[in-house]
């Protein structure tokens, strides 16, 4: 069994594919730094991550598959699922070897798998956009905690910079402990050393803007008022608004 060890970054994965073509051996398994090699390894290769190689591979993919499909590949990467990197490796290998684009061939398991995972990730991104609730802080900026299933925060930033372009905001992923801060010009990725206050998800009363509580309460009453009690359907409610989002929704507090 051929095993490649790489640094678990997307660039690293692309470099691994580049090296595989140079060496003409393709990995059966990919492992990260420090992971023990599997028992029946007969060939072990350490991938050096190289930006130029990664770029070349990416350009080649874009040419071969088109932008839209490459977008799916990044989605699969951000799903952070076990085996996702190996799936991508097989997919890219097939894509380069095939005479024309394989993107439409859903009879192939890997192609269908990539599409399905990408769809799931896109759905989670959509949900993130739906269920973010900003809290206004005392200094006039807005804060919202998120903890999506997949690492979809980078995918959704475009929506927030467009819609909330005239207010400063911070979106913080409490699970992965990083976030984006928008300073009226651009959104920057940030990691905080002391983020304990944010991890709870709710700004304390002294950090909140004066009117924040009022609007949260108004929203809660509105939410209660629009419910038609003759038609309660808790199962459908949970399907549409999964429980894992409730912790940060004022209306479900």
């Amino acid at each position, binding site marked *: 069994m051929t095993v490649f060890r790489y640094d678990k970054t997307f660039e690293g994965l692309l470099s691994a594919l580049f090296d595989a073509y140079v060496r003409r051996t393709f990995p059966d398994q990919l492992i990260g730094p420090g992971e023990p090699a599997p028992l029946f390894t007969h060939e072990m290769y350490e991938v050096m991550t190289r930006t130029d190689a990664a770029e070349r591979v990416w350009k080649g993919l874009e040419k071969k598959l088109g932008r839209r499909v490459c977008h799916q590949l990044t989605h699969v990467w951000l799903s952070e699922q076990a085996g996702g990197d190996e799936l991508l490796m097989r997919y890219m290998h097939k894509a380069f070897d095939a005479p024309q684009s394989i993107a439409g061939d*859903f009879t192939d398991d890997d192609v269908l798998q990539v599409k399905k995972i990408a769809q799931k990730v896109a759905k989670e991104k959509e949900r993130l956009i739906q269920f973010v*609730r900003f809290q206004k802080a005392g200094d006039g900026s807005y804060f919202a905690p998120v903890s999506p299933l997949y690492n979809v925060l980078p995918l959704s930033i475009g929506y927030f910079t*467009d819609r*909330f372009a005239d207010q400063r905001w911070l979106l913080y992923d409490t699970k992965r402990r990083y976030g984006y801060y928008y300073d009226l010009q651009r959104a920057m990725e940030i990691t905080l050393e002391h983020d304990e206050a944010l991890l709870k998800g709710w700004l304390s009363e002294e950090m909140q803007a004066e009117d924040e509580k009022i609007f949260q309460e108004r929203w809660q009453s*509105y939410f209660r008022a*629009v419910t038609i009690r003759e038609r*309660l359907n808790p199962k459908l409610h949970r399907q*549409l608004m999964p429980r894992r989002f409730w912790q940060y929704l004022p*209306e479900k507090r």
Partner: protein
Amino acid sequence: MKDSIREKLEILAESAKYDVSCASSGTSRKHREGHVGSAHGWGICHSFTEDGRCVSLLKIMLTNYCIYDCAYCINRRSNDIRRATFTVSELVELTVEFYRRNYIEGLFLSSGVIRNPDYTMERMVRIVKQLREVERFNGYIHMKSIPGASRELVAKAGRYADRLSVNLEIAKEENLKRLAPEKDHASVFKPMSYIAQGFLESAEERRHLRHAPRFAPAGQSTQMIVGATDETDREILSLSSALYTRPSMKRVYYSGYIPVNGYDQRLPAKQPPLIREHRLYQADWLMRFYGFRSDEIVDDTDPNLDLEVDPKLAWALRHPECFPVDVNRADYELILRVPGIGVKSAQLIVTSRRYHSITASTLRKMGVVMKRAQYFLLCRELPPQTVGELNPLIVRQRLINPPKNKKQEGLRTQLTFTFPD
């Protein structure tokens, strides 16, 4: 201190909630310098109520005082309920503050009729104007057009709103007149045609002048109450298919009747089954996305939709001569008619079959519901029992009452061929 705005919000949301329209789709607007917000082409639902409806817009009434006495409406003048009215600034502030917190996509403004339609409409226009021109609000606005409002006011509203809507309420005019003596169909169809005209005019103007103002870019929608009167599904669906042929008509909503005024003798005492509303929406989808005509879904022999099976399956069972469909050869339109195959899987099938022929296990992986589809299709494998060989009645029975356990299934399906995954 008691929050009076909060109280008003409760009263007026309570009054507005029976309007089912919720979409915030149809307009895409990027953020513009100095404005607040944007609009997202396919709409975003920001929350879901406990009855499973989406909350996309702040659905609210300007006031729930009303001079009309429509039997089906909770806000009728003879009802003894709490009444309230928002001022322009209160409602505008609420909208913007909710919007900035990502609670909503925009505003859905409706109103009870005070004094006369034009007076009411004028006050509603004042709010959306304030939102657009003073607050520079760039989000979505859906506005109800009051039946009987004048052309000038509808034209003004169309300048500011993304979508306008007039509710038809009852499909047959004599029934509408019985339940809502002050209304008739003409008062609904007139503003509808004003909106359609404005929509077409602005589209034409924008062809020549790129920056000509838009008029209700997301078109219009309407709503019908189902189950309060004796309309058949055939009458309802043929009316909505006629409405869909009109320019700018984007959605027809069906609202299952809820007995909010149980004391009124003109109304049925019981709520119709929720499933009827659901079947109507399924039929509506068939008309809009599956290329069905309304007279294919319901006809003179069955003027009502089958509540036990969905309208697509019902059609397939009435037309066994159209099946089985060969997924490797048939046109997209025909594949789309197979029960258990939706738009997404039909598209997957037609793109994939250019590479390899399609088998039952790939179909299953693509998300086709083989439980239903197996009776209606062929792929390059031993054919299962199709609807033509079995009887449509038997297929129907099998789909309505699926076997309870494996043992029973084994006994019954000895002769059928099941595909391994």
